C-alpha cells in the first residue's frame, strides 16, 4: 500500500470530494496560491479555480457564518480556520448557529459544514497558537468532532465529514502533518463515531486521540518492557464518542488512563472518566487517571513548553503508579 503524509491524505480527501461533488468548496485564509498555512490545500486552487478555493479576508466569524449560510442553501463548504485558537472568533456562529439551527428550525434544515483546523503545541508557537480546544465542543450539542491520528484516518474521516449533513469540526494536530502512513487507494469512508484498538493489551487501557495516539503507543512500548501490556484505544472522533469501545476495553483491563493534549480540568479525559465511572465502576481495579496538559496557558520557552504538555513518560509513570 502506498504511503502518504498526513497533509497529503487530507488534500487527497479534499480533491476527491471536490471532484465528486460540485457543491463542495473551500474557504479560508491563505488557502489559495499559498496552499494554506500548513500546506494542505497546495495545488487545489490551480485545479479547481478561485470560485471553489476561496481565499478570505481575516474574518473568522463571518467566514464561518457565510459557510453556514452556504451550507443551509445547497453548498457543502469546507472552511479552514488557520489555528484552532482562532475558532474563538467564530464561536457564536459555530455554537449558536451551526450547532442549533437544525434543532430549532426543524428538519427543513441541513448544515453540511466542515471546519478544519490545526491544533496543538510542541513547536514553541506560544499560548495563542498552540491550544487544543476540542473539549469545548463536547459541551455544545449539535457539532460533531473528529480527530484523525493517522494519514489513512485523515483521508477517511475527512471524506466522511464532507459527506455528513451536519457540522463537523476536524481537529488536525500540527505535529501530525508531516507524519507518514499507509493510505488505501479507495478506502472506505471512516466511520465517524467508531474507535479503533491500535494495540491490544490486558493490563491497562490508554484512551487517546490525534497526536497522542502515537505518544500512547510509545508509552505502551516502554511499559511492555516492564511486562505491562497496555491497550491503546484511538478514539478517532470525540463527538460522537465510542463509549462502547471504551467500556469494553476497561471491562477487560480494569484500569484506565485518559490521554489528551487539552488542559486537564474539564477536558475530554474528564468526560471519559465520568462515563467509565458511571457504566463500568465494578470493573475498575484502580482509580482512573488522566494525563493532560497543565492548567496554564502554553508557555513559549522550550524549557517550559514540554513541561506544560504531556509526554510519554507521564503516561508510563501514571500506569506504573497504578500497578506499583
Amino acid at each position, binding site marked *: 500500500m502506498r504511503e502518504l503524509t498526513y497533509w497529503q491524505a487530507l488534500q487527497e480527501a479534499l480533491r476527491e470530494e471536490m471532484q465528486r461533488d460540485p457543491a463542495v*468548496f473551500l474557504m479560508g485564509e491563505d488557502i489559495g496560491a499559498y496552499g494554506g498555512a500548513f500546506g494542505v490545500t497546495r495545488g487545489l486552487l490551480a485545479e479547481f479555480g478561485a*470560485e*471553489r478555493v*476561496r481565499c*478570505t*479576508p481575516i*474574518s473568522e*466569524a*463571518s*467566514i*464561518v*457564518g*457565510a*459557510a*453556514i*449560510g*452556504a*451550507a*443551509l*442553501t*445547497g*453548498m457543502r*463548504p469546507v472552511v479552514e480556520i488557520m489555528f484552532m485558537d482562532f475558532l474563538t472568533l467564530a464561536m*457564536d*456562529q459555530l455554537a*449558536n*448557529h451551526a450547532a*442549533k*439551527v*437544525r*434543532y*430549532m*428550525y*426543524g*428538519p*427543513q*434544515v*441541513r*448544515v453540511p459544514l466542515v471546519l478544519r483546523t490545526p491544533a496543538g503545541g510542541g513547536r514553541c508557537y506560544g499560548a495563542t497558537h498552540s491550544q487544543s480546544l476540542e473539549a469545548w465542543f463536547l459541551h455544545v*450539542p*449539535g457539532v*460533531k468532532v473528529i480527530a484523525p491520528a493517522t494519514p489513512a484516518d485523515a483521508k477517511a474521516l475527512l471524506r466522511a465529514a464532507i459527506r*455528513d*449533513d*451536519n457540522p463537523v469540526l476536524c481537529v488536525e494536530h500540527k505535529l501530525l502533518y508531516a507524519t507518514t502512513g499507509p493510505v488505501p487507494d479507495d478506502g472506505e469512508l471512516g466511520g465517524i463515531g467508531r474507535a479503533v484498538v491500535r494495540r491490544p493489551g490486558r493490563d491497562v487501557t490508554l484512551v487517546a486521540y490525534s497526536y497522542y495516539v502515537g505518544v500512547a503507543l510509545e508509552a505502551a512500548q516502554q511499559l511492555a518492557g516492564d511486562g505491562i501490556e497496555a491497550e491503546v484505544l484511538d478514539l478517532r472522533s470525540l463527538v460522537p464518542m465510542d463509549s462502547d469501545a471504551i467500556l469494553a476495553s476497561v471491562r477487560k483491563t480494569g484500569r484506565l488512563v485518559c490521554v489528551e493534549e487539552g488542559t486537564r480540568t474539564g477536558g475530554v479525559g474528564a468526560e471519559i472518566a465520568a462515563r467509565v465511572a458511571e457504566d463500568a465502576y465494578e470493573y475498575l481495579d484502580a482509580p482512573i487517571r488522566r494525563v493532560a496538559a497543565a492548567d496554564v496557558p502554553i508557555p513559549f520557552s522550550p524549557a517550559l513548553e514540554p513541561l506544560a504538555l504531556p509526554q510519554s513518560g507521564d503516561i508510563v509513570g501514571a500506569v506504573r503508579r497504578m500497578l506499583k
Partner: protein
Amino acid sequence: MGAATTVPLSAVEARRVLFQLTLIRAFEERVLKLVSDGSIRGTTHPYVGQEAVAVGACLALRPDDWVISTHRGHGHLLAKGGDANRLMAELFGKATGYGGGKGGTQHMADYAVGHLGSNGITGGGIPIGTGAALSAHMRRTGQVVAIFFGDGAVNQGTFHESLNLAALWRLPAVYVCENNLYAMSTSVREACAIEHIAERAAAYGMPGVQVDGMDVLAVAATVRSAVERARAGRGPSLIECKTYRFLGHSKSDQRVYRSREEEATWRERDPITRFRTRLLEHDLASAAELDAVARDAIAAVDAAVEFARTSPFPAPDALTAGLFADDACAS
C-alpha cells in the same frame, strides 16, 4: 429620499399589501396580550411600527429569493409568506409550530418561502445571509438575499466582515438596516460615531441609500433597485430604513430612554394609516373595502390563536430528536 407620488400597484395588489401590513400589526398586538395573560411564555420583540420595512422589502423580492431575519422577526416571516398559524403555534411552544416548539419567538425559519431564519444573536444572521448570497452566486441561480438587521447590529464585527466579503466577492446581497433609533435602550447617537448608517457603505465599496421606513412603497422601490443591481451581478447594497418601533424593545421594556413626545411624533407617521390614506386618495379602494381587509387580518390572527391553542405540545422524546440530520425529528 422622498415618498413615491404614485402607487405602482393594482387594486388587488394594494389590498394585499394592506392586508400584510395589518396582519403583522394585529398579530404583534395580539402576541403582546397573550404574553400578558401567560399563554405565551418568555418574551416577545414587537415589530409594531416597522411593518412597512418588512412588507416593502418583500414586495421587491421574488418568492425564491431569500431573507434572513432578526430577533424582532415575526414581521419578516409573515411578509415573506410565512404561515401565521405555524408562527403562533411556535410562540405557544406547540408541536405544530415552525420548530416543533423548540425554537420559539427568536428562532424560526420557513425555507419553503425563502426565509432562512430569525436569530437571537445581534448581527448573527448577517454572515449567514452573506453565505446564502455566496451560495446563490456560486450556483448561478440568480437568487438575491435580503439581510435584515437593526441599528444595533451595525457595530458588531460581523457587520463589518460580511459587508466587506460581499463587496469583495460581488455577492447578490441587499443589506437592509432597520434603524429604529434604539438598540434596546441605547440610542444610535450613543452607539454610533456617525448619524446615518448608510454612510458606512462607502467604507465597504458598495452603494448606501437612506429611505423613509414608514413608507411601504418607498421601501419597496429602494429595495427593488438594490435587488436588481444584485441580481445583475453588480454586487451588494446597504439600505438604511429610517423607522421606529412604537412599543418597547421587548414586552417588559418601560421605554424610559425616550420621550413620549418623540413616540407621538412617529405615531403620526404610522405606515398603515399612511398607506390606507394613499389608497383612498388614489381611489384604489373604498373605505369599506379597507375595513374588510382589516377585519380579515383580525380573523387570520384569531384563527392562528385558535390553531395554536388547540395544537398539542411536543412529546417528551422530542427533546433529544432532531439534533443531527439522519435523526428522527419530532416535527
